[in-house]
């Protein structure tokens, strides 16, 4: 146990930090078809937001981005990928909610076995990442306070 912990400390110290590729995991799209996370990488930067139907701040964050979306798109090109981590119990509600909240400009994907959540090491939702056009994760943020969406936009603009 101790050895293991020391190994981890060594790893922390020994490696240098830099941007990394989004992991290759299978997800479901809005229609229920299986897609790979690599399909989401298409040259356009993206805000990747992990949410669930029982997470209120997640929904607040996605709504706040949605409110500003058209203004922001005038200044920078990007897309929003909403990753629902709802399981079989709330999956159909999550699908309904993306329509009923008017998130029709978002790319909505469903991670019902939470493979993507585990691969991205998300322990608490909301957790938001920024991915550049090549699929590199360049920024991440957990939690939401009204107004923190502005920071995401600043990071997107900085990608230019």
């Amino acid at each position, binding site marked *: 146990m101790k050895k293991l912990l020391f190994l981890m400390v060594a790893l922390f110290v020994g490696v240098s930090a830099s941007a990394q590729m989004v992991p290759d995991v299978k997800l479901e799209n809005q229609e229920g078809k299986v897609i790979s996370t690599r399909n989401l990488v298409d040259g356009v930067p993206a805000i990747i937001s992990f949410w669930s139907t029982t997470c209120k701040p997640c929904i607040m964050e996605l709504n706040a981005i949605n409110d500003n979306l058209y203004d922001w798109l005038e200044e920078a090109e990007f897309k929003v990928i909403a990753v629902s981590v709802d399981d079989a119990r709330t999956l159909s509600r999550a699908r309904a909610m993306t329509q*009923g909240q008017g998130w029709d400009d978002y790319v909505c994907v469903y991670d019902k076995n939470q493979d993507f959540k585990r691969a991205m090491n998300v322990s608490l939702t909301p957790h938001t990442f920024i991915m550049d056009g090549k699929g590199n994760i360049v920024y991440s943020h957990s939690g939401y306070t009204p107004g923190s969406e502005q920071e995401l936009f600043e990071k997107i603009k900085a990608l230019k």
Partner: protein
Amino acid sequence: MKKFILFLGVALCATLCVNEASAQIKVGEEGRLSIAFESSTSYYAKDKLLEDIGKYTNYNPDPDYEFSFVDGPDRSNIGSNDYLKLDYSWKGLSVGLQVDAYLPPLYGYDLYKYSQRDSKLSGFLSKYIQWEDKNWGVRVGDIYDQFGNGLIFRTYEDRNLAFNNSLAGARAYYNFNNYVNVKVLAGMPRLYDIRTNNWVYGGDLSLSISDMAGWNDGIVSLEGSYVGRYDSDISEFNVIDWQTQQEINTLGRQHINMVSGRLNFEYMGITLRGEYAAKLNNDLFNNAANVGKGNAIYVDLGYNYKRFSATATFRRLEGMTTMIDPRKDNIFGGNLLNYIPVLTRQHTYSLAGLNPFMGAPSGNEIGGQIDLYYSLRNKKARGKYWNFHANFSMFNTYDHVALNSDSDIREGRNIWLDFNFDVERQWNKSVKTTFFYSFQRRDSDQYDMPEAHYCPSHIFVADVTYKVNKKHSLRFEAQYLAANNYEGDWVAATIEYNFAPMFSFYVSDMWNCEPMQDGSYGNYFYHYSMANSNDPALYENPYKHELLHYYQVGASFTYNSLRVQLSYGRNREGIVCSGGVCRKQPAFTGANLALTLSF
């Protein structure tokens, strides 16, 4: 304690290492190392009022009896659930490990009851190695997977419940041209912080009919699964029939075989998902001892058009409660191999979730829910909109009329009803309001009593967010629960001030405000004392006029993927649910430090 300090040291080191905004660490060509740390640590303070009420309601005439809120080994005044997860991936290969440390576990987490260790401290190490190719994949180690809706099999982790039933074993899948997908797996499931000796194995096959036919406008697929549980323990054991309360002596192994068949259909905004599952042999460990063979029906219908969407879910369960280790208790659904959560709306407002539905105790129930969503927005003024949501759920018992009878006649009694709706209005860039109402009616007594003791309640919530400017915002929430029996009326309020993107502060309080018809406060504790005691002296509740405030104060700090939250308050004894699975939370007063970090 040494371990605890060491763990905190590592956590601190990890925190200090986040010196730039990058999300993950690169090792080698295309390789990636990702690390996540999560910790929740509580300090339990002495609360005289809670203790007095606890002594009173858990009254024991034995003068030597020492009251403690929580059973199990002696509690320390500190609890900490910690998780450290490391993943390395390179091309299709990934390896990872996770260390769970319970130093000791927080109050109210079931794993305390299962832990077979002498020490109060406990931990678990899980690991995996996997290869993912375009059409196939292999994984050895801890496996998280589910077949269909999880009616016969689901392994997953939920840290809100300290639940993890991952299989230690192997899994392989192959996908042929998107037409056929085959998956097989086998392993030994985990039960909280121990690995059971039982084997679980299964396979899943899905056929995409629409892909085979070259139909691209919709989806038609047929799926089927098999799961078996092999009980490696051959010793004799006793089980208690929950209905007759009689002990049944059973010899030897309990092998279980389960199958499921599914149909998925989607076309022009209409979706239909149906599943039928069956348990093929008698499961003596079923809650419903007279329904050894189980079955379940699950139907999910959905429709959406533009910004309107509707879903309806129906489920019937009979004897499908399947334990990981039948020789251990199943307290609040922690010892489960399959996923049969309650299908009601999980409320986020505290008073709406004060007394949630926990499912029929026999596991035999029939019911469903309906959800409607609509968003009304102006194309020109995007920042102004209305969002509407309505939900209705209802569940009845589905038990045999006579005990141990082969009769097909079932008794159905309503045990849960919830109608709720919320209206959300974004008025302009700075003001947003939400109004929420819920009518709930539940069987307030033991669910297995012959006649119902209905307790209806109305819950009203108003929630206002005001954005002072781009960074500062204020949120105010007021809640009221009106009920004529059980605990009577409750009131709750929260004030939250946010300073984006880093700081957030909140203060909240919740109390049982209105006396009931007999003049007493309908406190939770009061209710229990009446139910548990035959001593007439106890009917004179000395605390009936003592108002208990369940207050909380807290602050959180966020920097990139680091989040730290510190809170202090009194917690009500009650049910905490996550993903439709619930655990019982004892009453306590204390401070909590929650930390998450990943990179």
